[in-house]
């Protein structure tokens, strides 16, 4: 059986406010797939396509962007900007043939841990099944 590190890993860019709180709760409850790697970002609006592409380039099987809900953003337009970046990314991943199913962007409130678990676990499964994801050898397939 391959070790944990050899299995496809999914990077989740988590806004430091509601999503990161949900992540900690989810991790504590053991419901989250162990293949999720957290990267905390100060706000959903911080996301730029380069970060996501960088993660895929470095071998992530999937990437998620998780922002707060629009009405709950502490920094004004963060989720809106995050959504705009995600729209661009969806097109980019399609254009570049990176497998759009390996990318997901969504919002959650601080009490929506279940939603976070469902979405991230779903992404982990989809990414693992994707023909574009990294094989066990560790080599990136483009």
């Amino acid at each position, binding site marked *: 059986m391959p*070790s*944990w*590190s050899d299995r496809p*890993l999914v*990077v989740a860019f988590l806004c*430091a*406010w*509601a999503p*990161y*709180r949900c992540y*900690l709760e989810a*991790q*504590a*409850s*053991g419901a989250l797939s*162990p293949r999720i*790697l*957290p*990267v*905390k*970002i*100060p*706000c959903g*609006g*911080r*996301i*730029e396509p*380069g*970060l996501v592409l*960088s*993660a895929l380039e*470095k*071998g*992530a099987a999937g990437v998620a962007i998780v922002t707060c809900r629009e009405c*709950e953003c*502490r*920094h*004004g*337009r*963060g989720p809106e*900007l995050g959504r705009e*970046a995600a729209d661009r990314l969806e097109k980019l991943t399609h254009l570049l043939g990176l497998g759009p199913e390996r990318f997901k962007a969504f919002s959650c*409130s*601080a*009490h929506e841990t279940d939603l976070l678990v469902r979405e991230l676990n779903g992404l982990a499964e989809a990414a693992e099944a994707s023909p574009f994801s990294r094989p066990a050898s560790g080599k990136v397939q483009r």
Partner: protein
Amino acid sequence: MSAEQEILILGTNREGLRAALTLAALNRRVMLATSTEEIAASRPGADPEEARELRILALQAAFHPLIDLKTQTRLCPAGDGPGLELVQENRWILPDSCTACGKCLEVCPVLVGPEGHPVSRLTNPSVMTIDKRRPAPCREACPLGMNPQGYIALIAAGRDKEALELIRETNPLPGICGRVCDHPCETACRRGELDQAVAIRDLKRFAVEQGRAKESSRKRDKVSSKGPRVAVIGSGPAGLTAAHDLARAGFRPTIFEADSKPGGLLGQGIAPYRLPPHILEGEIDYILSLGVELRLNSPIRTTARVKELKKSGFKAVLLCLGTGQDLVLGLPGEDLEGVVGCVSFLGGLWQGRTPPRLGRVAVIGGGNAAVEAARTSLRFGAESVTILYRRTRAEMPADPHEIAQALEEGAKIRELAGPLAFEGTENSLKAVRVQQMKLGKKDASGRRAPVPLPGAQDRIKVDTAIVSAGQGLDLSCVLMDDLPLGDRGTVSLDRAGTCLPGVYAAGDVVNGPTSVVRAMASGREAARRIILALGTGLELLPPPPLNKTTGPEYEPLPQGLSFQKRSSCPIRDPDIRILDCQEAVGTYTPERARQEAARCLQCGVCSECGQCVEACGLGVIDHSREPLRQEASFQRTLLADPAQLPPGPEPANLLRIPVFGRVNTPAKADLAGRSAALEACRGLSPSQKQAAPRPVWPVVSPDREVRPGLLLCSCNQTLNRDGRLDRLAADLGPGLGFAAAEVLVSACHPQEGRRVEKFIREQNLSGLVMGSCVCCHLDFRCESCTDQRMRLKDRLFRQSGLEADRVALINLKETCFSPSGTALEHGPALARKLIRAGLLQLTERQAAAERPASSRRREVIVAGAGPAGTAAALGLANAGRPVTLVHLEDTAPEPGPEIQEAGIRQVKANRIIELRGNRGDFHLTVETAPGREELLAGEIILAQGRLSRLNYRSPTGRVGFSPGPRGSLETSIPGVYLASWPLARTVPPEEVGRAAAGLALEERPEPYLDISARVDPDLCRGCGECAKVCPEGAARLVADQPTPGGPGPEVCRVDPELCSDCGQCLAVCPTGALSLPETGAEYYGEVLSALLV
């Protein structure tokens, strides 16, 4: 402490927290106090979002350097004076030190309800708490102050050894008390109100029996060989207890026993089938092992002998002489042969004297001694035994179980039979003449008094009569000429508890014949008095009698609880047990004991069994911690929560934070808190900016060797069970190139801060990666933050002064471990990745540039001079801010003198033409009589309703503005506030004005680490995308250095005071000119590399 704070705020609801934060922003020192243990919304029906917002506000307040937030603290009249004092109560768990590791919860044996424990976690603050009520009734009833609830909970949890240790803490004779105690605890047991009292005595015996195997290896208290010598006269329960307590306190007691065997009435008055001799011997041996000397056959009966003892070096003499003399009834024929006293009858037998021929026996009395005499007679060949008692069986003071056993063994009880005379021939007893009684009215003892039935007398033929009419001091044996004696033949004590100088008395000799446990309590009290009088060993003073019946009441008795019969102990067959004197009653099996213990209702909720204290190990928990009192002398008191107001006269300078309408919504609460804060500052002397001293990193040198260190927090060893964190440190330290790696007990505990500093200095480190529960080293408080995280950051970066850019904080606890502390399957591998990323973070940060200076303007413009505008302007001026008050054509009459006195600049204008700029740098153009005037300010308050149609143009070309969400004073432009409340009908305009001023004055405290966005001027092309998205108005376009051909092009500048580090500007910058040391693209690139290796 009180001298430091200027303003007290009572209540930590949203109003109180907001007021505290506003005051702190004005550099006022604030004490924020609430009597509750949790900070919760006072508004009924508050939704979860409100609770989360409150949590963040509470964290901001709790860790603001100018705010001292105290929970469980109430204001009350000072004990002996006219003033007020703040009393912090229920300090069993110190919230400032609790790491919330949960070890206390793991070990708590008390179960209340299906899964509830007295220990639980609070959310806000995130610390543990204990539900403690008044002591359980069994504990209150025990003269020794034993803790039955505690040891029963431990027995129920299967922890018999701990149960015995808890019993031993207050009872030096547990084996004896587990058999013969008259258990006042069971009488008080609330379970008895439902079905039957819990069998506390039997459970105690079970714990002792189970723990006996470990007795030999039991930890002995340290014995002093140098303490003062004390003579204890008598080795009964009082003497033994006193000697035990004195020895534990470091004294050298010597017991003088007149008899050849120790134990007093324990040995002579209690039958071996109730108390086997080996139990007594075992308990006495233990007491002697503490350093107590025992001298047998050493009667001390005269004053002269007592004086001799004192001369020979005994600092005190304690008389525990007991009451070994039978009292007589004074009836005719009592001197006949065959009439014996109970004590002399039993004592003679147990000392080995040959019993007389008993024949038909009558025992006169209804106490335990009488029942025991009856049962003993049966064992020594009595043909029949009848207990004659004046009342009925229900009134007999003897233990009902003992009575039942006596009846099983063949004894009979003749109720309502009062002896009149003993009749006999030739000096030999033949019969007892008895008077038939009936029950009359209740007497002083609370029992119905026996009243003779006229003419109803008869004779009972007997051969032996045992009189159990009570006991008294054997005066023939004690010839102390100046010993003051009371009415009942007992020694009288003066108020200090002594009868002669240096001579004390305890036990039955003082109180008359009582029970074993009361005699022991008396011995303990005497030991206390001796220790207090001699003034040594005070730290080991035995606990005083339990008299704290205060505290929240018990839970009501559960309804609908099914009847559960109390478990009985195994008992030998009566026909067999009367053939010998072997112990009649056995002890529980473990299963029966657990079953019986589970019947306990755990009345006091927390049982104070002390398991949590031991498990914590950090000194956070102490069940005996006294309330903390401090004088309350504040210049102002703000009342946020009316429930916090003490009874009696109001504190001076009290200001009530208003409630608008029925209840304050969150927006109104913010408004009320901010407004009250500004109001509270009126008349106070100007505040000074208080810069906190910031020591520096021990070794700071740009070109020194890079020596990173690794510290892993074990969260009070919960993450280090089986040493797995030690192994991780040993593996990752050298593996990832750390100069040193260590495991901390609890990084957030006050003591560990010093250890971190020491580690850095001793290892000469250039940076530190800390794996704990802390996720970031920012000073803002997000949804995920906890008190522990903030405490660690505050301690490291604010108190110890470590430079935050040299510390990388990784949340290992919640990413690599389950809540119970077990490592997740992939935990170690993930920890390795995260720590590697932290190391990169450290390297990245060390190159961080100097923080640029803020160019934020301090001036504030208030547009509109109505009541709201005037109040806002005055509030701002009072806080020391330069204010321009714009009188618009149709607002306000002439300004009052206050405005002029406050030094407020006033401008009269017909209208506002336009507003340009960003927060920190606004340009307001107004039309005045001479023409146009441009006013400059950092913030703007619009205090006129019609201004909501303001003509606004931002530097990036954004036009127009709109009010913020309903009820908010903020607008779509950061730094522009409305002082025209949309729901003004319930809120006075002055309040709105002050609240807007409070909002404009709010500032973040100095951050631990400046991570504001930096601009590379060579890359910036002045496109303004950053300024468009910046939610704080921190990023703005300014003219660059002028060129020979004219003014330079516009480039971006970020004001560090306004930047909230959200990183939105980085995401939109097309040239990569913007960077953030904490969240830049390069940093994330390195983190992703570390994670995805």
